[in-house]
C-alpha cells in the first residue's frame, strides 16, 4: 500500500468528520460533541507515525481551526502537542489491546480538554470543563469504529 492508498481514505474521513462536526446539536449538548478531527488525527498518527507525523497533526489542527472558527493556531498548537505525545509512545501503543487504546483515547481527549481550558484561560475565554468526563466517554466510544477502520489499512500495509 503506497502513500496514495492511504491519502484517499484519509481525505474521505476528514470530509465525513467535517459533516459530523457541523451536525446541528442543541446548545447544552454541544459541549459533549466529540472533536472528530482530533479522533482522526489520533488514529492516523497512532498507526502511521512515519507517514502522518507531527506535520499531519499540525495540518489537521489548522483545518480544525478553519472549520470551527477558532483562533488560527489554537488547535494547531493543541494537536501538535497531542501528536508529539502519540509519536513518543507509539511503539508501546501499537501493542495495546483495543480496550486499552480506548482508555488511552479517553485520557487524551480529557487532556486536550484541559489544554483547551488552559488556552481559553490565557485568551480570557470561558473554560468549558463541565461534562469533560462524558465528552471523554463519548469520544472514546466514537473512536472504536474509527480504530477498526484505520487498523484495516494498517493490516493491508503490513
Amino acid at each position, binding site marked *: 500500500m503506497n502513500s496514495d492508498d492511504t491519502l484517499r481514505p484519509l481525505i474521505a474521513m476528514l470530509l465525513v468528520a467535517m459533516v459530523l462536526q*457541523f451536525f446541528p446539536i*442543541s446548545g447544552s449538548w454541544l459541549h459533549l460533541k466529540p472533536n472528530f478531527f482530533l479522533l482522526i488525527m489520533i488514529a492516523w498518527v497512532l498507526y502511521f507515525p512515519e507517514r502522518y507525523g507531527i506535520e499531519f497533526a499540525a495540518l489537521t489542527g489548522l483545518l480544525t481551526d478553519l472549520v470551527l472558527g477558532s*483562533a*488560527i*493556531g489554537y488547535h494547531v498548537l493543541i494537536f*501538535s502537542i497531542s501528536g508529539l505525545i502519540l509519536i513518543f509512545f507509539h511503539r508501546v501503543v501499537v501493542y495495546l489491546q483495543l480496550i486499552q487504546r480506548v482508555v488511552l483515547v479517553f485520557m487524551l481527549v480529557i487532556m486536550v480538554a484541559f489544554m483547551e481550558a488552559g488556552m481559553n484561560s490565557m485568551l480570557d475565554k*470561558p473554560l468549558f470543563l463541565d461534562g469533560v468526563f462524558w465528552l471523554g466517554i463519548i469520544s472514546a466510544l466514537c473512536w472504536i469504529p474509527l480504530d477498526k477502520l484505520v487498523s484495516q489499512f494498517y493490516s493491508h500495509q503490513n
Partner: protein
Amino acid sequence: MLFGILLLTLDTYTSVFDISKTEVSKVIIPVQILSNFPYQVKDWVSMNTTSRTQLEQKNVSLEKERLILLGKLQRSAELAAENLRLRQLLNATELLMQSVLVTEVIGVSPNPANHFVTVNRGKVDGVYLGQPVLDEEGLMGQVIEVFDNYSQVLLITDLNHALPVQVLRNGLRSVAEGSSDYNQMSLRFVSPTVDIQEGDELVSSGLGGRFPVGYPVGTVSSIIQKPGEKFMDIKLKPSAKLDRSRHLLLVFTLKDGDMIRAVNEQR
C-alpha cells in the same frame, strides 16, 4: 508547536487571516447544508405523516390565534399612529418602523465558544451587515457576514457581543453582554444603588442605532452584590430561544416617511 504559537499570535494581534476566514466560510456553507439534511428529512416525514384530524385541529387553533393577533394589531396600529402624531408635535427624533423577512436556520456553529448561526437569506434578499434578527420570543442577534444566498448571524450570547438595553419597568439603561452560554447573559456596569430586581424585563434601548427600540432581550435571573465591588454581578436569561429556534425574522427598518405611509395603509 512554534508554528502554532506564531499563527495564534498573528491571529490574535493582527487581521492577516480575516480574508481567508471569510473565504473558508463560503466553502463551509454547503457542508452545513449537508449536515442539516437529516433535520429537513425529519420535517418532511413529520409533514407527510400528520393525519387529517391533527391538521384540522392545528388549523382551528391557528385560526383562533390569528383572530386574537388581528385584534391586538388593530389596537397597536391606532397606538402607533397616535405615538407618531405626538412625536411630531414634540419635534422628536425620527421614529423607526420595521418590516420583517422570515428566514430559516441552516447551520449552527460547531464550536461551543462561538455563537453564530447560518440562515438561508443573503444579498439577493436585501440582507445587510448589522441587520437585527429576531425569533418569536425576542432578539436573537445581528448579521455579521452576507453571501449571495446565505448570511451568518452572531447571537447575542456570543462572548464578543454587547447590546444596549433598558429595564422595561423604569427605563434604567445598561449593556447586556454574551457569556458563551445560550441560557445566560450578563449586565455590565450596574451600580449597587440602582433600582433593579430579579424578574425585571429588559428590552433593547436603541442606543447605538444597531438594534431597534423595545424588542425583548431577557429577564433578570440573579443579582449578586459583593461587598467592596463597584458594580453588581447581574445575570439575564435571554428571551429568545437561541439554541432551538429554526425560523427567524430579519428586521428591515423603514424611516419616518415610509412609516407614515405604512400607518395610512393600515387604516
